[in-house]
């Protein structure tokens, strides 16, 4: 049966190995995992008992531990530095977090970015409308799509020349099949206003890979039904690269490089709550039990004998609006508005 317990069981050996590995190699976790290590070295224990011995890793820890506190490899192997854009709190002195990557970390991330079902063929045009400055997503997609044979168009985002109009022009004039962006609806509306052309009706555009902004399932399905375009959400953070990758229009798979816990202090057994990430392999910024500040819901399914974890992201915890016993997120309003004639999804 595919449920939380079977997902935990399937991954428990990996989690224990990761704990032992980081307790040996990472200065930060050496201290933090002492109690967990003692438990592992002792007799029987449950995964929950083990987790109870491991404090969450916070963004603040990451900032305090920079640059070498978290490393699980020699410093000489670090080859890239990224930061979160900090757009959720302003660009200066914001809640930014930094991450370090080895070559292997980067290659793993690149491999996660282009799932096979996208069917990227040599010569197909991919427009990357994400910021290349500081954050890792644009770099990851650039390299991954290039490796898949796509023709890369690095239109960037946040650069003074990289306007939505320019992105729209390039998408249409180059017959792009893939668009990677953080807000397809804003791009579409601005371009529609500027040029009168609806990008969702662009003949060649098939996949819209969305990073950084949750888009509700209902909205994705509505766009698929109405325009035939696949809006494919990714879930990632600069600290990890791509964590959740599309399995289809209506499903996002947690890649097996990661293990996801849901943290909900009020209802510990709930499948909805704050997303807590274990990175199972990275060595530059090897984070486990990392509190993301994002809220989502997990579900499980057995595929080819393996329990897969799927994730639906709702938004930032600090953006949540309390509504009786639950919380409302921007995607909930998106659900209400989607399909209403004349209403933009901005």
């Amino acid at each position: 049966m595919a449920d939380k317990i079977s997902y935990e069981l399937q991954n428990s050996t990996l989690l224990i190995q990761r704990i032992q590995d980081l307790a040996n190699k990472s200065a930060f976790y050496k201290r933090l995992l002492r109690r967990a290590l003692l438990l592992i070295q002792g007799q029987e224990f449950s995964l929950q008992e083990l987790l109870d011995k491991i404090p969450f890793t916070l963004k603040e820890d990451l900032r305090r531990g920079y640059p070498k506190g978290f490393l699980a490899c020699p410093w000489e192997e670090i080859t890239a530095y990224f930061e979160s854009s900090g757009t959720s709190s302003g660009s200066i002195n914001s809640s930014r977090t930094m991450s370090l990557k080895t070559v292997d970390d980067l290659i793993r991330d690149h491999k996660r970015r282009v799932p096979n079902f996208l069917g990227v063929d040599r010569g197909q045009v991919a427009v990357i409308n994400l910021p290349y400055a500081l954050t890792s997503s644009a770099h990851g997609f650039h390299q991954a799509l290039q490796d898949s044979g796509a023709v890369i168009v690095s239109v960037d985002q946040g650069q003074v020349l990289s306007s939505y109009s320019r992105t729209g022009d390039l998408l249409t004039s180059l017959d792009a099949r893939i668009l990677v962006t953080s807000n397809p609806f804003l791009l579409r509306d601005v371009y529609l206003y500027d040029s009168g052309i609806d990008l969702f009706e662009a003949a060649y555009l098939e996949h819209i890979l969305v990073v950084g902004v949750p888009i509700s399932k209902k909205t994705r399905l509505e766009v698929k039904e109405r325009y035939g375009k696949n809006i494919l959400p990714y879930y990632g953070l600069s600290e990890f690269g791509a964590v959740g990758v599309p399995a289809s229009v209506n499903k996002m798979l947690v890649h097996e490089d990661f293990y996801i816990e849901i943290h909900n202090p009020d209802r510990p057994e709930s499948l909805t709550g704050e997303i807590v990430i274990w990175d199972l392999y990275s060595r530059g910024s090897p984070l486990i039990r990392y509190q993301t500040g994002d809220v989502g819901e997990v579900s499980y399914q057995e595929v080819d004998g393996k329990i897969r974890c799927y994730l639906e992201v709702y938004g930032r915890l600090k953006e949540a609006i309390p509504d009786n016993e639950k919380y409302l997120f921007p995607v909930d309003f998106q659900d209400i508005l989607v399909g209403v004639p004349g209403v933009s999804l901005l």
Partner: protein
Amino acid sequence: MNGLWVDVLEQRLQRFNHVFQLVANHSPLYKTKYAHLRGHQFDCLESIQAIPLTSRADLLNGNSYLLMGTHPQGYFESSGTSGSVLHAYPDISFEKAQAFGSYLDLWMGLTSAKIESAAVALAYEMTPIGMRFQQALQSCGVMVIPTGLRSTVCSPQRTLEIICRTKPQAIFSRPLELLRYGDVLESEGKIKEIGVQKLFYLGETMSEQKWRRIEQVWGNADLYGHYGLTEVDAGLHTCLLKNYHEPLNPFVHFELLDKNCNEITGNTEAGEIVISTLHEAAAPLLRYQTGDLARRVKCACGSKAPAYQILGRKQDGVQFLGQTIFPYQIENIIFSIPEVGNEYQLVIEGGGDISIRIEKAIDCSISKAQLEEKVMHAIPHFLKQITSVEVYEWGAIAHKLGIAKKKGAQFVDLRGSKAEDRSKELCINVIDFAF
């Protein structure tokens, strides 16, 4: 001519013949252009002058120069700062980046200087440059911090904050930003603690005095420069004596042509740089007129490859009394005066005269009037078209943490502009951040 260079030229000839046949048969542009020469073999590099030049207009209005049946790895565009936007299809493979990394390492001595980290403050937007340097540096073991250029995600202020925090030992950027960032950090007394050892620039014409200033403001870090174009995907690199050299490889060939398209062989006459790309690429260009002017120079650095002084873009020059004046010439004069700050503006006024807007250096102790007099006095006779010098306090011409509209070392041409638009035209930054 030394043996190594003769070998390189021999290989270039072979590659030229190969690429010529390739484009004559498979490039829509060259199929037409070279129809009368198809099958021709060139027996020396001098004889390639028989084939027509490729102009920017050919790329803009003619058939595509992308080889038929090939898929480019990327589609890029020139920034358009020197005219219409051109398409470019450079080789962005990892192998190329790796080879470029080895070249950078050897040239800049990254490994020997134990350079562990570098800030890449170059553009990634529609240009292969940012990713090229990112991958090249990573391939030689340098940790890269991609701060980007002209970015609002990583604003100049944030770039400096990151530089202070991460203390990269090398910075790759444009001269304009290197000077601005250096200025701000120096004014805050942080340059020494950052400890940058290597600086790299591209994208701007460099005067000797600007070179000296950049090195100086960054605590005498070593400065390296590159000349190239997005559509060409190859270029010249500087030596320790600040001259630009051809690469000692057979993958690109340079010519310097006079107004009548004859090869210039002497060392004084200025001419247009014409480039042929000779590597296997999706869109080779043969005898491409860059629109950039240079002159050959004798260089005592010891390199076997020919050396050049880059003068600037053809359209950057202003005609006056039968002479062409380039921004770098004026820059060289004003930057030789220590009391002048690093931000300046050269303005061609409505009537054709040139005025200079400068700011005082941080530690300038003389008055504005004295500085104005000093600058006017330093201007040689052949630049007497310069009629006025406006002096401002340090930081008053433009916010150093703003994003500049265009690269440095260019004239602001107000001829044909309305008087009421003057202040708008003179605004250096496209975005100003509080400083």
